[in-house]
């Protein structure tokens, strides 16, 4: 009986339907909580670029109070009618810069809510093994970096993965300048080798020993997005 074709086919179909129904309902029950987690994680990364975030930080409250979300194009114009949560940074990256929708988080001052203190934008690039991404916070002069938060999918633990795991990497970008004097997209360049300091060069940061290829990916990513947001930051200083 168990070797009859009809039995095998029916068995497979029923097994698949039952499994699908179970998984579907599990997903349904948990999806709200999962979306909240993803949203909270993004907010945490954004706030990490401008302040220290720890367990006690009320991320949702601070975010609601200080952050405004916009989508702009590469000319620096605000795109109305496009919701930020619908923009997928990694997907936009496949388009030429001129056609991309660019998310922008405008962060207001803690004390004076009319004053803009920082601009944060997301980036996406390719590391050595897999995708890398980051949030970059720019001070309101439009070129000085306040802070960065890197993320990656599969860089080598202990080497390239340090862009996320090593708390010493991101601060190396603080107070460096993403643009030159005339807002040319000079970007910031992570050098090969480790143990340097560049107090007088606002466009160079110390590298990661053994992770030059990941650093190259980071450099290319920062340069690309410096170009994409160039017109916007330029227009701030007119």
């Amino acid at each position, binding site marked *: 009986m168990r070797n009859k074709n009809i039995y095998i086919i029916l068995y497979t179909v029923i097994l698949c339907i039952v*499994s699908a129904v179970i998984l579907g309902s599990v*997903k349904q029950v*948990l999806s709200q909580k*999962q979306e909240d987690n993803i949203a909270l994680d993004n907010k945490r990364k954004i706030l990490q670029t401008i302040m220290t975030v720890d367990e006690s930080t009320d991320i949702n409250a601070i975010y609601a109070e200080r952050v405004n979300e916009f989508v702009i194009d590469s000319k620096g114009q605000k795109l109305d009618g496009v919701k930020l949560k619908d923009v997928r940074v990694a997907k936009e990256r496949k388009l030429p810069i001129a056609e991309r929708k660019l998310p922008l988080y405008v962060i207001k001052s803690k004390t004076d809510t009319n004053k803009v203190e920082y601009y944060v934008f997301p980036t996406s690039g390719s590391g050595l093994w897999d995708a890398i991404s980051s949030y970059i916070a720019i001070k309101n002069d439009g070129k000085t970096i306040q802070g960065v938060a890197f993320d990656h999918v599969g860089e080598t633990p202990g080497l390239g993965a340090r862009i996320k795991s090593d708390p010493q990497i991101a601060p190396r970008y603080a107070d460096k300048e993403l643009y030159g004097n005339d807002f040319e997209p000079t970007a910031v360049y992570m050098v090969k080798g480790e143990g340097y300091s560049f107090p007088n060069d606002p466009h160079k940061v110390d590298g990661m020993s*053994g992770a030059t290829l990941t650093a190259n990916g980071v450099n290319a990513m920062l340069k690309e997005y410096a170009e994409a947001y160039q017109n916007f930051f330029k227009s701030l200083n007119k």
Partner: protein
Amino acid sequence: MSTETLIKVKEEREPLFSKKNRKLLIDPIDSDNPITVQVLGICSALAVTVQTVPAIVMSIGVIFVCAFSNLLISMLRNTIPPRIRIIVQLVVVSLFVQMVSEVLKAYSYDVYLQLSVFIGLIITNCIIMGRLEAFALANKPWPSFLDGIGNGLGYGAILVAVAFIRELFGMGTIMKGTAIEWHVFESMGLKFQSIGIMAMPAGACIILGLLIWAQRARNGYSETN
């Protein structure tokens, strides 16, 4: 006829944790360990052992998946068409793995991000397929369930042991990321110098080899005997 009744009576009288059932639970932890003795499930043992906490979560995931897929396959064992039994096993394993993944994503997002791809890879874990094929298909649900837990525990014990050593020498910490995180070397006033290879899968390979050596030397186990 008489032997049949005899067997039946014997089975009904068997307590939940009879000596035989306890053996199913405890043997895989040491003398029949799936990693060190059967040398199965090495891939994830190398990959998910950089830190202790993800290793513990991974072990819990494998124990859950192994126990419940053993249970379910054993319950279905008399209905499964032999020709497609591997496919049925895969569907059942995937079902439980996906459940673990979704629950982690909802309740422990940090760990979910850290383990991401390895949770999915539990599906291909040789230990689980091995137990389904070798044990659950031929045994009753309760012993199968115990066998699943036992093998999951055996896998977890090795995983956590390797992760503990790798974290200690690769990062200088114990239980990093929890409330009891302890920076061993700093608290003893020593400067910590990370051993780079411990952060790489090659480090796990070496540690695992040493563990297998130590365990076999102690138990007197040899492949040829």
